[in-house]
Each structure stands twice: as structure tokens, then as C-alpha cells.
């Protein structure tokens, strides 16, 4: 923890990056702040303030990166490979002379720039959709028409699109250095799983499969680039303006200070926009060649094939438990297909952490395949892992004759077992309790007796009959639940400034991003609270590497927990300066003054000055507050938790699953804005519903080509597909985590949704769901399996 006593200004601290942690050196804040305790009397933080940019968004005024127009701007369009593997021979001579076309290049015409460790434009083709040439024209239409006129010839080579194909002996070479990253297989083990299995009364082994899911943000990846001399300005749709700046400077071999990255409004990211995109490199290079500003925005097909996906995996799970439900062993063997690149995101972490167990081994084998590269996608790893783990826990509960929730309570983890550190706060038990109550979990038909200490379970019925469900007709009803763990504790470095304007308003400057999460609004609330300003007088400026101080990427649900404390500190700093100045004017001392609601008042006195009056008095004297994010507490794990309960109805004649209701209760510490946080829960649950029921990139295995790179065949949920949602928080400040008491909100809610729905479908049909999405044909195949099993194993308990 921050330790100023020995005079150190820089310390090492753990910094969280997408659920992973790194140790970094950070600067200690210039002064320490007392935490906003749970139950503290805060007036603006905790309020359902309206979204600060709502009016800009409903009027069409909000300008996204793809809306940026520059004088003389050209439009770049990308020729993408039509084959999965081989060599492309491209002749651009005819295209270069077409009307409106200003430039056309292949990889050999531009400096070497790498994306995912491979050339930006390459005639060696490694996946369908790979960029191989670029055309720049006066209009988007002219550029796209020119693409069709390019002479391109493909010599196809064999491809591998599944992990099994890629890792098989004699498999085609997917990447120059081999088909698996160096870390593969990654084995993480604690205890002794063989001893654990020997101790077990019950052992189950199952295999689960998750699909490749596509982010499908409505705003595609895109950038506009413009050079002024040797300085570059890029407007990019990105989750990290500073990361993008660093990527561009490195790739173009120019000083980082010569690159300015701007992003005001952003049409969704969901993890796929964490650094400079292919589009940004192309726009910057083509702008340099042509001497004109260039826009390069993905068309939808490019977006759906070559901008990232949640990787598909096969998860073989073995769980061992004693008769009382105590887990004695957890074993995962997973095979993950990454596509052509990305990072090693496997499902193992949640198996390591969610439940208490002394003997755990996760083995993750990664394979590169001839498809677009994976990218982080809303709670990467834990979403995929939660499906396998939480399905297996339900199977185990069934084998043990225990209620699924009881099994989870029996194995409740109170510390981070991998590091043997306590959690800053963990209220998952309250999430279970409140969620079960709101859902009616313990009074559902089929609830079994509870073994947990608070004596719930059947007792909750209090003599009343259970709530009956439709079971035997065409529509079968089922109930399921699942849990969640994720990071979201954030950390340094992150900086903010608060500037008071002569009219009494305040401007918050911080280099973060608002993907639609509401960070802009939340930071206005934090600043207004700490400054004592009126909320409507606070404006937040974000996303400009030249104008706003550094913060990291908006990923891993860390934005509020990382940047919020810096914003609060900057506002507190500005307020103390303001009070000092006011003390002079009011002829008193700063400690006798208080600022609130845009007014500085003398305590127990009548004299006061509004911020606007202060501004007039100060004239051109500026008050600028500085804030930085301090280090995280030592030997403590910062995590978020939650539980979801699902009710489904399955049409056994058509295989259509309808999710009727989701009850979600999450623990993210203090909630700054309940309305916006609720919107995030809705979003996670709805995306999770899509993952459970519809979403799957379909690949033609013979050709290696994605078949559904559009928004019709890749089906995301529509308004007709969504359940009734009852979403809430255990809203208690976590002052161990940081001095605003908040952890992240955005990613946690997508984690438990799909397994909760799958557990409910399994419950409805009495058949084990082992693969998502639960499309009608897949559900019908479960039904067939059920009838086969009933014939073969009549007399035995149905599994599920």
C-alpha cells in the first residue's frame, strides 16, 4: 500500500490487465484521501443521473470516428482474401487508372507493419478475410467498385480451421513459427488431483463445447488519419487512445509525441478495439502516401471476419466430490482455437478460482487456425470457462442428489486460492441469498432440501406446495443458476485534471474512453461530488492523447476503479485550492469553509460565494486540480462476483428455447449510478442470452470460409428474444479496494447467463446440454438423445 513514511515516490504494484495481472512501477499520489465509507452521505454519487451525452446521442449530434469528415479526405477500401490459405497474385495496374482512384497498394508497396505478428498486407494468405491490397478513392463507392476490378489470382493450399486439425500430425503450417504459441500447453496445478480423485465419493467427467462468438459492435473498426508535416492525427474507434498512439508510433517509426489519437464517441467495443486496428495503420500509411486525409472503416463483412472473436474451445472436465458435496478435485483439459493470432485466452482461470478446492489442475492447449484472429470479448476466458464449469457443477449436484445452489454454497471460496490472498470484499453469498429469494429458487418445483446453515431450502416453503411447472406438454419449463467471478479492481497508472472555468463551471480532463458504458457520466458525478459543484456544471473531456492525461485502456471492467479515484483526487485538489482562495476573499480560514452544490459557505455562518462569483473574483487566475490513481493494497485480490437465475421454456416440438426470466444479483462494490449500472447488467445478460441461444460463427470446413459474416445469418438477440430481467446489486462500498469503493460492472453480467440458461434447459428436458448455442436443431438432437437414453437405460435417473 502507499507508504509515504519512508519517502518513496515510486512503488511496485499489481496492475490488472483483462483479468491477468502484471507488476508495474507507479508513482504514489501527492496526498492520501480518506475513503468514501459505505453509507457515507454522498449527494451526487449513487444518484441515477441522466447520461451526460444522452442528448447528443438522441439528436444525432454525437460524432463517432466513422462520422469524421476532413477536407479532401479519401476513402480506403480493403481487398480481403477469398481463400483460407495459399498465395494471392495481385495486379493493380488496371485499378490505378480507374476514375476516382488515387492510390492502390499491396504489401510490397508499403513499409513493413505487423498485426498479430504478421504483415499488415500479405500475399501469403493465412485466412479468408485477410487484407491483401488497399485502394484509395475519392468516395467510398468508387473505392469499393475498384476492389471488384482488381486482378487477383489465388493458389490455394490446405488449411486447418479447428484446433484438432491444426494440432494433428502433418497439419498444414498455419503460422511461420508453428501452429501453437510457446506457452501451449499451459498447465496450472495446485495440490494433487490424483489424491483428490482418490478421496472422492463421486467423480464425473464431461466434455463441453463453446462456439466462436463475434463482437458485432454496431460501429465497426475504423479510423481517419491526417498528417500535418511529420505529425499524425488519428480519429479511431478504440478502447484505448494511448495504446493506439503507442502502436501507431512504433509501427510507423515516428516519435510517440508526434501521434495524436482522438476518440470522442464510440459505438461499442466489447474488447475488440484494444489497440491500433488494421484500419488505423492503413489510414495512416495511405494518408502519408497520398498527402490527403484518409478514412478506412470496415464494411460489415470485414468486421465480422477480421476484427476478433471469442475463441471456440472444447473443455473436458472432471470433478470429484465427497458425499456432502465438498469438491476434492477439479481437472480441466481444454483445447482452444485462436484463429491466426491474438493472445492465449483459455477457459482455465475460473476453474482455478470460483470454488474452494485444494486439488486443481487446468491444462490449456492452444492452436492457431486459418481464421481471423481472436480478440478479448467481454469477460474473455471466464465466459467460456463458466459454461463448462457451471454445467459440470450441475451434473455433479444431480449425481449427489443436492440442490445446485447448495453445492455452490458448500464449496464457497473465501480467499483467492492461487495466491492465498483474501478478497478486498466478497459478497457472493449475499448475491445467492437475494437472487434465490427474488427468483423463488427455493420454492420451485424440484427444489431439494438445503444443507446450508441458514436453513433455507424446503423450509422456505413453510408448508406451502411448490410452485408447479409445465413439464409434460409441448412446452417444458426449467430452472437453472450459475455464478460469476471476474476482476475489475483496476489500478494505476491513471491521471485526471479538474480545471475551474471563470464562469464557475468545471472541466474534467482524463484520457479515458466511453464505449457506451457511461464512464463520462460517472466521472462527472464523482468530480461534482468531490468538488462540491453542481452536476450540470461539470463537463468531462475524454479520449484525446494531446489534451487529456494518461489513463489505460477501457478493458477488464477497470475504468471506474482505475480512473474514478484519480478524478476524485483531482476534484478534491481543485476544491482545496478553491477554498484557500475563497478564504482570502471571505477573510476566514479554509478549514471553516465548505463547498457544496456550487457554493462555498462559511460553516455555521451566513456568508457564501457561488462558484461563478469565485470565478469572477479570480479572473484569469486558474485553479487546476491534479489527481492520480494510487497503488492497490498489497496481498489482496480485487474481484467482482455475482449470481444469475434463469427460467426457460422449451418447445419440444420445434426445439425453440425461450428464456422467460433472468434474476441477476451482482457485487461490484459501490454503484456510482444505479440506472447506468443496471443498463450494463441488461447488456451483459442480453449478450449472454445470444451466446446461449443463437450466436455462432459458422465455418465451411472444406473451404475454410466463414459462412455468416453479416447481421442476418449471425444472429444477435432482437427485442423479441429477451427475457424479463430483474437485475440488481449488493451495493456496498469496498473501501479496501480503493477510496471511492467501486469495482467494475461491465463484464461480470455476461459470465453466468449462458450456463444458467443451459442449466435451466437441462432441467427442463432432463438431458445434459453440453454445447452452445442451443439452436433448435441442437435442442432437437438432445431430445433424440433423451429418448435413446430412456430406452437404453430405463430405470436410471435422467442425467442433467
Amino acid at each position, binding site marked *: 500500500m502507499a507508504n509515504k513514511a519512508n519517502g518513496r515516490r515510486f512503488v511496485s504494484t499489481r496492475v490488472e490487465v483483462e483479468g491477468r495481472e502484471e507488476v508495474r512501477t507507479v508513482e504514489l499520489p501527492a496526498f492520501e484521501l480518506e475513503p468514501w465509507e459505505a453509507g457515507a452521505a454522498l449527494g451526487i454519487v449513487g444518484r441515477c443521473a*441522466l*447520461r451526460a*451525452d*444522452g*442528448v*447528443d*446521442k*438522441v*439528436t*444525432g*449530434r*454525437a*460524432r*463517432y470516428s*466513422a*462520422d469524421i*469528415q476532413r477536407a479532401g479526405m479519401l476513402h480506403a477500401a480493403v481487398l480481403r482474401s477469398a481463400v483460407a490459405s495459399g498465395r494471392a497474385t495481385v495486379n493493380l495496374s488496371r485499378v490505378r487508372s480507374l476514375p476516382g482512384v488515387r492510390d492502390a497498394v499491396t504489401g510490397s508497396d508499403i513499409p513493413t507493419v505487423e498485426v498479430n505478428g504478421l504483415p499488415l498486407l500479405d500475399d501469403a494468405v493465412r485466412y479468408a478475410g485477410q487484407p491483401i491490397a488497399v485502394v484509395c478513392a475519392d*468516395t*467510398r*463507392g468508387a473505392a469499393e467498385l475498384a476492389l471488384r476490378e482488381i486482378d487477383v489470382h489465388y493458389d490455394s493450399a490446405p488449411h486447418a480451421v479447428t484446433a484438432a486439425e491444426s494440432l494433428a500430425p502433418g497439419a498444414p503450417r498455419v503460422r511461420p513459427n508453428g501452429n501453437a504459441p510457446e506457452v501451449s500447453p499451459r498447465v496450472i496445478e495446485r495440490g494433487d488431483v490424483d489424491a483428490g480423485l482418490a478421496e472422492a465419493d463421486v467423480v464425473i467427467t464431461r466434455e463441453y463445447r463453446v462456439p466462436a462468438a463475434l*463482437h*458485432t*459492435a*454496431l*460501429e*465497426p473498426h475504423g479510423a481517419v488519419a491526417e498528417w500535418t508535416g511529420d505529425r499524425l492525427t488519428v480519429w479511431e474507434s478504440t478502447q484505448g487512445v494511448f495504446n493506439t498512439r503507442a502502436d501507431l508510433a512504433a509501427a510507423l517509426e515516428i516519435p510517440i509525441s508526434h501521434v495524436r489519437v482522438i476518440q470522442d*464517441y*464510440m*459505438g*461499442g467495443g*466489447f474488447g475488440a478495439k484494444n489497440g491500433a486496428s488494421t484500419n488505423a495503420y492503413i489510414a495512416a500509411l495511405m494518408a502519408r502516401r497520398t498527402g490527403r486525409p484518409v478514412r478506412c472503416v470496415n*464494411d*460489415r463483412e470485414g468486421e465480422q471476419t477480421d476484427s476478433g472473436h471469442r475463441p471456440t474451445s472444447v473443455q473436458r472436465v472432471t470433478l470429484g466430490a465427497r458425499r456432502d458435496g465438498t469438491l476434492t478435485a477439479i481437472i480441466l483439459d481444454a483445447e482452444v482455437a485462436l484463429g491466426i493470432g491474438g493472445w492465449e485466452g483459455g477457459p482455465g482461470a475460473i476453474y482455478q478460482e470460483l470454488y474452494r478446492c485444494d486439488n486443481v489442475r487446468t491444462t490449456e492447449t492452444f492452436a492457431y487456425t486459418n481464421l481471423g484472429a481472436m480478440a478479448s470479448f467481454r469477460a474473455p476466458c471466464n465466459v467460456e470457462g463458466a459454461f463448462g464449469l457451471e454445467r459440470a457443477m450441475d451434473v455433479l449436484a444431480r449425481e449427489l442428489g443436492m440442490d445446485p445452489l447448495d453445492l455452490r454454497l458448500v464449496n464457497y471460496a473465501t480467499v483467492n486460492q492461487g495466491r492465498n490472498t483474501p478478497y478486498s470484499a466478497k459478497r457472493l453469498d449475499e448475491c445467492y441469498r437475494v437472487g434465490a429469494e427474488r427468483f423463488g429458487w427455493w420454492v420451485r418445483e424440484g427444489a431439494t432440501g438445503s444443507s446450508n446453515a441458514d436453513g433455507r431450502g424446503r423450509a422456505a416453503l413453510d408448508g406451502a406446495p411448490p410452485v408447479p411447472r409445465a413439464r409434460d406438454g409441448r412446452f417444458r419449463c426449467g430452472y437453472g443458476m450459475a455464478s460469476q467471478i471476474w476482476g475489475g479492481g483496476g489500478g494505476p497508472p491513471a491521471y485526471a485534471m479538474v480545471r475551474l472555468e471563470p464562469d464557475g463551471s468545471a472541466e474534467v480532463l482524463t484520457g479515458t474512453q466511453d*464505449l*457506451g*458504458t*457511461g464512464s463520462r457520466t460517472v466521472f462527472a458525478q464523482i468530480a461534482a461530488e468531490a468538488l462540491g459543484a453542481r452536476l450540470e456544471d461539470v463537463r468531462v473531456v475524454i479520449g484525446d492523447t494531446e489534451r487529456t492525461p494518461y489513463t489505460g485502456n477501457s478493458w477488464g471492467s477497470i475504468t471506474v476503479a482505475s480512473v474514478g479515484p484519480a478524478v476524485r483526487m483531482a476534484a478534491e485538489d481543485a476544491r482545496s485550492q478553491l477554498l484557500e482562495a475563497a478564504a482570502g476573499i471571505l477573510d476566514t480560514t479554509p478549514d471553516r469553509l465548505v463547498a457544496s452544490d456550487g457554493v462555498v459557505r462559511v460553516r455555521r455562518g451566513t456568508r457564501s460565494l457561488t462558484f461563478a462569483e469565485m470565478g469572477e473574483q479570480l479572473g484569469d487566475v486558474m485553479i487546476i486540480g491534479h489527481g492520480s490513481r494510487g497503488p492497490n493494497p498489497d496481498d489482496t485480490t480485487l474481484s467482482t462476483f455475482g449470481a444469475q437465475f434463469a427460467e426457460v421454456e422449451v418447445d419440444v416440438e420445434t426445439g425453440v428455447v425461450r428464456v422467460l426470466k433472468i434474476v441477476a444479483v451482482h457485487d461490484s462494490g459501490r454503484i456510482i449510478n444505479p*440506472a*447506468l449500472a*443496471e*443498463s*450494463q447488467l*441488461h*447488456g*451483459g*445478460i*442480453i*449478450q449472454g442470452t445470444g451466446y446461449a441461444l443463437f450466436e455462432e460463427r459458422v465455418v465451411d470446413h472444406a473451404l475454410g470460409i466463414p459462412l455468416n459474416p*453479416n*447481421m*442476418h445469418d449471425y444472429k*444477435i*438477440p*432482437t*427485442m*423479441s428474444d*429477451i427475457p424479463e*430481467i430483474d437485475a440488481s446489486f449488493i451495493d456496498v462500498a469496498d473501501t479496501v479496494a480503493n477510496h471511492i469503493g467501486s469495482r467494475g460492472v461491465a463484464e461480470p453480467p455476461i459470465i453466468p447467463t449462458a450456463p444458467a440458461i443451459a442449466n435451466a434447459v437441462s432441467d427442463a428436458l432432463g438431458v445434459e446440454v453440453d454445447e452452445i448455442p442451443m439452436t433448435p436443431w441442437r435442442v432437437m438432437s438432445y431430445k433424440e438423445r433423451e429418448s435413446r437414453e430412456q430406452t437404453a437405460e430405463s430405470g436410471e435417473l435422467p442425467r442433467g
Partner: protein
Amino acid sequence: MRLEINGERFEVRDADYLTLLDVLRDRLELTGTKLVCDRGECGACTVLLGDEPAYSCLTLAAACEGVSITTIEGVARDGELHPLQQAFVENDALQCGYCTPGQIMAALALLERSPSPSESEVVHWMSGNLCRCGTYPKIVRAVLAAARAMNSEGDGGE
């Protein structure tokens, strides 16, 4: 060609082959209307032709001569938000906001036809407008709230 957009007349040259969406965004810098799927699957480019909702990505600009076109930029009047826009803001019926213009245009067309829609009517009508942030429950709430506000305005007004 001559187009009437949000009550203003525009003269657009050499645009016979362009979609209405391209004319709006690239020629007239009316970028509130969004390009997302470019093939009529997502509803983000919805505008009104008269009272009819239309996907501007599938509509040739040349086919819109003589029709009054309304885009998101023309919904607020004299700096005053339309009750539907107000309801979207008040109900937090948007997150990233990229689908929002299309959602509002689709909802406007609905309320024109059915001033007091039921919840299921709203859900059915709006199902062609995709939102990846998952704002749907609040969009339904906003459209119903706007309908109530517009009806009570009508009751109490001139």
C-alpha cells in the same frame, strides 16, 4: 436531383447511383443516420419517407425526389427535444448510441400509426432494430413513456 430533408431543400449532383444513406452521410454531412450492416439487416440507417420508415442503405436517393425525408437531425424542433427523444434520455434507453437514431426513427413511425401501442406491439415493431449493447428493456420503456407523454400533451393542449 432535388431532395427535401428535414424541411430543407437540397440540390445533389452526380448522385444517381448513390443510396440515400450515402447522400445523407457523405454528401450532406448528416451523419446522425448510421451505416452499420449496409444491407437492411439492422435498422440503424432508418429514416422516414413521409410517415414510412425506410432503410436508407437500401433506398436509392433518386427514388426520394418529391418525398419529404426526415432524419434524426430533423426530429427535435427549435432546439426542443421531441418527447420520444426526451423519453430515451430519461429512461437511459441508449448506451453507445450507435443504434439510437434508427431506434428513434422506427419508434416515431410506430407512434404515428399507433399512438397508444401495447408493449407487445412495441416489441414486435422494433424487433428489426438491433442494439448490441442490450438496451432493449429500456427502449421499450422509453417508447411507452413517450406515447403516454404525447397523448397527455394532446389531451391538455390546443
